[in-house]
């Protein structure tokens, strides 16, 4: 049941048009802010941007996993954006990114349950079967079901 708190369909956006990685990160921050998951969209945006500067979160195969662990985040959150056209993410395989799975974690997150879900999601992103089904998903509900199925 806990996964209902970490992702829902209001945190999933399909067919989003973006020109740059920054456009995408801004949208992710706005989605999280509108869903009352973060105190400040700007702080979440800056947190993700800072993380990207350390090393790209575009791990290949057209998928990126931007994330931030900062004070301004209120609840552990997964949000998903699928782009209409892929954007450059300076990815590990130099391929543009079309699917973005963003994570938000409060800096003082205590208790491991939600962190375990995020770790499990991260591990699953190394499985082509999992990433393939996310890439080919057509609806918000499909994406929600695919992600939450690994938490069962």
């Amino acid at each position, binding site marked *: 049941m806990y996964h209902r708190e970490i992702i829902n369909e209001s945190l999933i956006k399909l067919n989003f048009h973006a020109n740059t990685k920054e456009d995408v990160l801004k949208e992710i921050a706005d989605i999280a802010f509108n869903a009352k998951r973060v105190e400040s969209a700007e702080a979440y945006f800056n947190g993700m941007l800072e*993380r990207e500067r*350390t*090393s*790209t*979160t575009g*791990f*290949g195969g057209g998928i990126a*996993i931007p*994330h*931030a*662990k900062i004070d301004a985040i209120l609840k552990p959150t997964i949000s998903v954006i699928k782009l209409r056209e892929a954007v450059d993410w300076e990815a*590990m*395989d130099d391929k543009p990114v079309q699917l973005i799975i963003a*994570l938000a*974690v409060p800096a003082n*997150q205590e208790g*491991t349950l939600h*962190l*375990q879900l*995020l*770790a*499990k999601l*991260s*591990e*699953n*992103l*190394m*499985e082509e079967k999992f990433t393939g089904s996310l890439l080919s998903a057509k609806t918000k509900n499909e994406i929600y079901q695919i992600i939450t199925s690994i938490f069962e």
Partner: protein
Amino acid sequence: MNIVAVTACPAGVAHTYMAKKGLEKAARKLGYKIKVETQGSMGIENKIEAKDLEKADIVILAVDTKIEKASRFDGKFIHEVPVAAAVKNAVKVIEDAVAKL
């Protein structure tokens, strides 16, 4: 071949666990035994103990941050790479380590 590894990244949210999975899959593919300890946001998990180290031929550190209890590995053959290397191509990380041994 017995491998032990530690993965760690600054946030400890995503890449630590992706690198763990990457190394486990790569070791299976190459026919090696591996135990991967994660040092992430949940602290140390699947900890490498003295008995694991005794059997280990190689220590792989896929880390972007200072790890805890690093002195355990003193005197062992250590191959250190950025955590991203184990996410991108863990087979290469293991092959490089074995080639250097």
